């Protein structure tokens, strides 16, 4: 009898199915905009072939008695034209069991990934392989040479378990965050705004202020929220931004599964009546210096691992865990105003660069964090994206205004008809 291929979800992945649904999708999207229209047939073949190499993602999720787990998936993935909002919940039963979904629209290919499968870095590796194979097949008759490099050796180890330190005391949440206010869009709708920013000009501005790019963009995010939402609704709690951190930058690991933690920067703006952008930038910079250190990140990671390792919790049957984690998630959501994910520069093999216009990263907003922000860059463009479930687009307009005031070249792409302008 053939041995059943199965594996446990990693320590981070196991919580996502417990609280995810239509309201909290736990899905992120990576898109590539190509210079030519997408050929769906070639795309489908490329995804199927890539799954032979990345068999770690050729899986379906199943419910065990205590936890969900992954099992080999023999069905073909569904590839279809984009016909819904980005980052929607992936109902894996309607998706041939897969925890990712590949869609296309005109020149754009999207992959929506449920976080139980992998994190941003793993998603990028998988997606890049799909793009390489797609472009190889599409340009078969051109002079482009066939790529011989194969994927790096990855493991499916749970790097959290291997690296967490039982002795470290985990962090406790102290003060809840300012939660964005305003009328929401209709259920299921997500508005998306991409700012395609000239990377050199943005870097120059950040360097002039003596801060990193992420710090600068985080400060712009806080300032936009402060001016357009916090002040109007007389906010009292600090604006908190949750920033996912790739643990592979701190701890050696070759896992293709989740291995990230996060830090939360907290900016208290209730001390005086008016704050300038420069003042907010310095507050954000101070938070980055204090919190973007290995010890702090390890504390957060340890807290998350400990919950999954806590025996009384492990032996609770799945349906009860489900109820508990839904409540826990609602509480956690009170401790962040928004999330800012930065997957950094996406490196692509030289010969494929000419076929690619840009990459986009999108993260699903939810009832708690009504906007989510994300960053990725390719060549000389950085794309900052805001996904939003609020009707108003004042935060987006303010962000645009800051870029314009600093003479930073920017192009805007949206998924709706709302005009982002200075006076909105």
């Amino acid at each position, binding site marked *: 009898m053939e041995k*059943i291929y199965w594996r446990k979800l990693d320590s981070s992945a196991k919580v996502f199915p417990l609280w995810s649904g239509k309201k909290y999708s736990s899905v992120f999207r990576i898109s590539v905009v190509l210079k030519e229209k997408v050929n769906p047939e070639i795309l489908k073949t490329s995804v199927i072939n890539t799954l032979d190499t990345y068999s770690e993602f050729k899986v379906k999720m199943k419910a065990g008695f205590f*936890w969900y787990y992954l099992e080999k998936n023999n069905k073909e993935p569904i590839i279809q034209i984009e016909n819904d909002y980005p980052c929607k919940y992936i109902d894996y039963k309607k998706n041939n069991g897969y925890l990712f979904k590949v869609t296309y*629209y005109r020149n754009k290919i999207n992959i929506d990934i449920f976080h139980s499968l992998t994190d941003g870095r793993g998603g990028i590796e998988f997606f890049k392989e799909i793009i390489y194979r797609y472009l190889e097949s599409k340009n078969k008759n051109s002079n482009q040479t066939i790529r011989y490099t194969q994927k790096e050796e990855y493991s499916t180890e749970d790097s959290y378990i291997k690296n967490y330190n039982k002795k470290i005391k985990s962090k406790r949440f102290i003060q809840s965050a300012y939660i964005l206010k305003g009328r929401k869009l209709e259920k299921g709708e997500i508005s998306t705004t991409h700012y395609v920013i000239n990377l050199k000009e943005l870097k120059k501005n950040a360097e002039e202020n003596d801060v990193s790019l992420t710090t600068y963009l985080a400060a712009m995010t806080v300032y936009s929220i402060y001016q357009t939402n916090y002040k109007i609704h007389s906010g009292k709690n600090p604006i908190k931004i949750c920033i996912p951190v790739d643990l592979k930058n701190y701890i050696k690991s070759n896992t293709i599964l989740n291995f990230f933690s996060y830090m939360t920067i907290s900016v208290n703006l209730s001390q005086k009546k008016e704050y300038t952008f420069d003042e907010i930038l310095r507050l954000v910079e101070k938070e980055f210096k204090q919190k973007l250190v290995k010890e702090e990140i390890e504390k957060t990671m340890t807290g998350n691992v400990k919950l999954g390792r806590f025996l009384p919790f492990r032996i609770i049957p799945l349906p009860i865990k489900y109820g508990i984690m839904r409540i826990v998630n609602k509480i956690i959501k009170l401790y962040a105003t928004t999330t800012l994910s930065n997957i950094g520069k996406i490196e692509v093999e030289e010969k494929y660069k000419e076929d690619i216009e840009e990459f986009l990263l999108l993260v699903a907003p939810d009832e708690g964090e009504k906007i989510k922000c994300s960053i990725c860059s390719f060549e000389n463009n950085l794309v900052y994206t805001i996904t939003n479930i609020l009707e108003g687009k004042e935060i987006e307009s303010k962000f645009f205004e800051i870029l314009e005031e600093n003479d930073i070249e920017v192009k805007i792409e949206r998924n709706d008809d709302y005009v982002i302008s200075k006076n909105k």
Partner: protein
Amino acid sequence: MLYPKISKQNKRKLKDRIVNSVDNIIDVIIENLEYLINNKGSLLEVILIRFHI
């Protein structure tokens, strides 16, 4: 244009949602039965997978 126009989705009626939930439960039961029948030679393995903590 990077995104298609999305048409307004009709809200699902309560009756549809109940039927859908019942369908899901039946699916899970059938799936588990099939699983046990197909893997009866390795019951221990099935238990190990389904009951891992």
